[in-house]
């Protein structure tokens, strides 16, 4: 059977939604970070797929994906560092506990 573009787009969309869902529901910040990664990767898939199916012969999407991966890595590193800092200071890693500043 023929694999149309949808076969790729729908999973990536699902992935994205899972990421969003996870980000909003999980209380552990590391878990939230993982969900973020899901979202970013979904985006990458989108780019690759669009490039591959709609505009073959160009590489713009691919390149974008490469950069995006790098950026995602950087973000993760930074995020983890900061989360560790928070843990150091407040002994907590639960997102509900980092709500000192509000209103």
């Amino acid at each position, binding site marked *: 059977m023929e694999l149309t573009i949808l076969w790729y787009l729908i999973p990536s969309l699902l992935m994205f939604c899972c990421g969003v869902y996870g*980000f909003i529901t999980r209380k552990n910040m590391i878990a939230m970070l993982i969900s973020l990664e899901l979202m970013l990767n979904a985006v990458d898939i989108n780019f690759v797929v669009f490039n591959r199916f709609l505009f073959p012969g160009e590489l713009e999407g691919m390149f974008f994906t490469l950069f995006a991966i790098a950026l995602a890595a950087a973000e993760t590193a930074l995020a983890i560092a900061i989360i560790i800092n928070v843990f150091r200071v407040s002994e907590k890693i639960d997102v509900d506990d980092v709500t000192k500043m509000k209103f």
Partner: protein
Amino acid sequence: MEPVIPIIILALPLTMFLVLGLLGHKMAHRTAGILGTLSMGVTMVLAYITTLTYFFSGSSEFINEEGVRLQSVIFNWDWLAFTDSLVIRLGFLLDPISALLLVVITTISFMVHLYSNGYMRDHHGVWETGFQRFYAFLSLFSFSMLGLVVATNIFQMYIFWELVGASSYLLIGFYYTKPSAVSASKKAFIVTRFADLGFLIGILVLSFYTGTFDFTNFTSTGVEGMANVYQVDLTTAEGIRNWIASSPAPVFMGGSVLTWALVLIFMGGMGKSAMMPLHIWLPDAMEGPTPVSALIHAATMVVAGVFLVARLFPLYLMEEVALNIITVVGALTAFYAAMVACVQVDIKRVLAFSTISQIAFMMVSLGVARPEFHHGLGYMAAMFHLFTHAMFKALLFLCAGALIHAIGSNDYTDMHGLRKHMPVTHVTFLIGCLAIAGIIPFAGFFSKDEILTAVFGQSIFWYIWMSAVAGLTAFYMFRLYYLIFWWKEHKTPEGHHAPHDQLWTMTLPLVILAVVSCVAGFVPFGNLVTWNGHPMFESVNFFTNLGALDWSVAAISLAVAILAIILATVMYKKENPLPAKMRSALPRLWDWCYHRFYWDELYMFITHKIIFGCISRPIAWFDRHVIDGSMDGMAWVTQRISFAIRGLQSGNIQLYVWIYLVGVILLGAITAVCLL
């Protein structure tokens, strides 16, 4: 006539006001008194000169060949130009009535100035505090009153009208530490101010439709060949009436515009001349020093209303209605005031009410005056009575002043039997009483007789009515006379010296005025002051007035007066139970008269309960709570909202992201829905 003298007549009192007002407290009392009196004397002399020139010089700008007296505008300066045609001018209009009023005002004013030198200090010669201020205000008043009577246009009249109001306010409130005086002055000002509102609106209406303020454009036509000289005639007034009738909106709420204008203007007159129902300020005005009452509230200012009507008389002739209203108001007021005067205890109040009643006489006589009847006899009579009344009423007030000064009280109950102690005052007061009672040959007799004749010519009913009022007048005046000078005298308390006649400064004016009151009646007014300047008699001599009497009327009024006097004698010559009997016979009537028919209470109710209580306070409340509240309310609501939505900023990242997401979706969805 050269404008120099007229200008000085107006300028002198004004300067005196400024000088005494600004520098007065630096001067010695005596200096201030003398200064004021002298300047007033000069003014009086100049006024006499002006008047005599007007009446007897026979110059062509004052009288034409067939002996018709003319109106001549001595000078007329632009003061304020609203539009090209509507210009307020300050000028000097010389015609019979203004000339007459010049004499009256300056004479009485001078007498009062003289008299006050004595009156405004106590027995030990200690001057009243604010003596200089008193003279300053007197000068201010004289200035304003003179300006009023010589006004060339109705707006100038209004200006000085307000000024006399203000100066009377200041003079009534002269003893400003006395609460009663303060409230009296306030009352006087506000009541007259209310009347002036009518006057003002009347002026606005009249000037809007006629496009002018000048009296000469209302009532007279220019004499050809002579600038600034006019002759009174009806054609102009008729022209105005027809012009208004042909204007787009000649009728306003039933009445013709002209009627409205005239009635409203008359309302101003009612206020100043204390006609019912705007009379209530005059009795209280007696709180002021007695000379002031004599000058302002008996002789001059209160007749301003009469003068105003007389000034516009040809216009009033165009509107029968207005004249009838004037008659009715006058007649009612006259009777009412006379009734009240019969039971008052305070002698100045008695005089005040008699003043109201006498002015009402003049009003009535203006109201009944018609050209077709004896060349408008009523008009002449009114002016005549204005003159004589000014003299004898001033006399009476000054006598009252002398008494009060001697006794230190306003109540006749503290006086009784003073005829031995104060002979001069006694005699002059008696003359005054005879004059006002209308006993031949005193001044009052002639003027009042003319009035009654005029009324008789117009309607029998009002004639009877007014004769009754005349009787009442004689009655209450002699009641007052007996209660003051007869009856058994009080024991002088130890340590007090017995009452006695006052200084010459105070007695001299009494004597002069008494003499005037005796002879004034013989002045041949018919040839001097008539509504259109036409003389009434071909030739005049000392007995013209006697000759001109309508003896039937005269006899009746004389009889009525004498009867009234006899009645008064019987009741009050010596202490007897009759008055008490009468009082208990008609308790209700007595009560009502004694409380002046509760007019003041009514006004109190209207002002305090209705205007303050039902209008001002609610408005103030509304302002504080509703208007203010709404503004504060907005602020409050904003605060509340900002407090209510603070939950969005919960500090929880996931909620932030959630809102973010919803925001994005909404943004996209709404836009999509809107566009596709």
